[in-house]
């Protein structure tokens, strides 16, 4: 346990040391957030509620999205796949302890750093300036915090699965390029999934993409219970899936080079 905590701390420190990238990231989030905010204000000028969302829900969606962007689409997305392709990943299998947990601990350290340095400041400033719908009680805020951390865990678990494609093919990036546009839409990063047509939305609600963005948005705007339950269920399922993939892959791992 101590080893995993140390890895978590190391991941946190590693990510926190990229100061310039942090500033550029905050600027990018702020800019897109402002544009999206203007879009929703204009859309809701003559409407109170559309597809169950009012303007406060929509603005909350915008700023949770901006806050979580770098958590879900982590800049280090391909590190695992590259380590697998180069063969460095073998060292990971030789180290003591559980490789999946070790990777999770280090990754979670990095995403926690993003949560602290990007998500929380972005959401706080937005909440001070705009009528967001955020929990007003400490308990509610704690649930939102838990939901953001769960989003970070699921994001690692999904990135792990995509990275694992490198065990089977060196063309893992091409594969991902073809699915990325679909993930981008269905996870709600283009528009809230609430605006999807009924059948599509029902389908998406049962997908592991919901815990990444829409679940935290729902926790923030009031439907905490079911959203958190969905996240926990997916963490458990993806945990089993990730471990199964790792077990399969370690057996057929081919290391190129000397």
């Amino acid at each position, binding site marked *: 346990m101590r080893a995993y905590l140390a890895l978590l701390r190391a991941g946190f420190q590693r990510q926190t040391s990229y100061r310039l990238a942090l500033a550029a990231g905050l600027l990018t989030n702020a800019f897109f957030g402002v544009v999206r905010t203007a879009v929703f204000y204009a859309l809701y000028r003559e409407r109170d509620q559309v597809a169950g969302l009012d303007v406060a829900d929509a603005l909350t969606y915008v700023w949770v999205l901006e806050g979580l962007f770098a958590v879900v689409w982590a800049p280090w997305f391909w590190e695992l796949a590259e380590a697998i392709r180069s063969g460095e990943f073998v060292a990971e299998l030789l180290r003591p302890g559980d490789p999946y947990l070790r990777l999770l601990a280090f990754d979670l350290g990095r995403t926690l750093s993003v949560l602290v340095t990007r998500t929380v400041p972005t959401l706080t400033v937005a909440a001070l300036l705009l009528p967001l719908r955020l929990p007003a009680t400490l308990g509610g805020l704690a649930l939102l915090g838990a939901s953001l951390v769960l989003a970070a865990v699921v994001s690692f678990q999904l990135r792990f699965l995509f990275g694992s494609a490198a065990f089977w093919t060196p063309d893992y990036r091409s594969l991902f390029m073809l699915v990325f546009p679909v993930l981008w839409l269905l996870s709600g990063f*283009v528009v809230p999934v609430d605006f999807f047509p009924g059948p599509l939305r029902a389908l998406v609600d049962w997908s592991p993409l919901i815990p990444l963005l829409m679940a935290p948005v729902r926790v923030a705007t009031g439907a905490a219970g079911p959203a958190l339950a969905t996240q926990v269920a997916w963490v458990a399922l993806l945990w089993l899936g990730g471990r199964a993939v790792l077990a399969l892959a370690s057996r057929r791992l081919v290391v190129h080079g000397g």
Partner: protein
Amino acid sequence: MAEHAGVYLRLAAASVRATARRPAYLVVRFLSAGMIVGIEVAGVVLMLDRFGSIGGWRPAEVVVLFGLAFTAQGLALVFGDTLEADKVSELVRRGTFDQVLTRPTSPLGWVVASYVDTRFVGRMLAGAVTVAWAADRAGVAWTPGRAGLAALAVACAATIIFGVLLAAAGFTFVTVQGSEAVNVLIYGGQYLASYPMQIYGSALRFVFVWVIPIGLAIYVPALGVLGRQGPAGLPGWLAWLSAPVAGAFAALGGLAWRAGIRHYVGTGS
């Protein structure tokens, strides 16, 4: 630079041939780039259809803006992708740029022609298809004048984005590391220009019409294409201004690029 045009064309063709050695890879990059445009547009249409209009514009009219902005951005990045911060940074850190400076070609020509990413060709074409599709849905009756305005919008906005890339590259020569912050203008500018300008506050509108005039370049000609009146302060005749403004902006970017090269000292690698 013009007298070496043949050299640059051969360089660019060689880079495309190199990618084409793996046709499947080429096709995937191309398709994926097109899909991103299609998906983004699909999402926006789903949302706008729920609301019916934004700033008085119908969904199809807004999608014309999306298409124009994507086309322009794709066009700019077909040429300017190698000017992005991470790529220039690598050029400097590896010492490759030292060699570029000793060659009897213009450094800019070499950097631009050294690699053509087919992804952005896909983005550009998908953008153009989007314009055609949305214009049809918006009931645009194409005339030579309107087609000319659409082409003007794409050319001017692409020139402006290219100018931003030039200036950013000049900056990267000095700082070596470069900053991803420029993506705010390249991707954020495209996103902002995809919605009608009247929905933005006066500060944002001023910046993107007059300072980084990508809003001027897309929005004002689009008014003509769609046969619409602009809001107060943005009359349709401003479209005539967008070409000289875009040219001047790119020239400023070129100056920044030159200043960057003048301060370039290499990394000793």
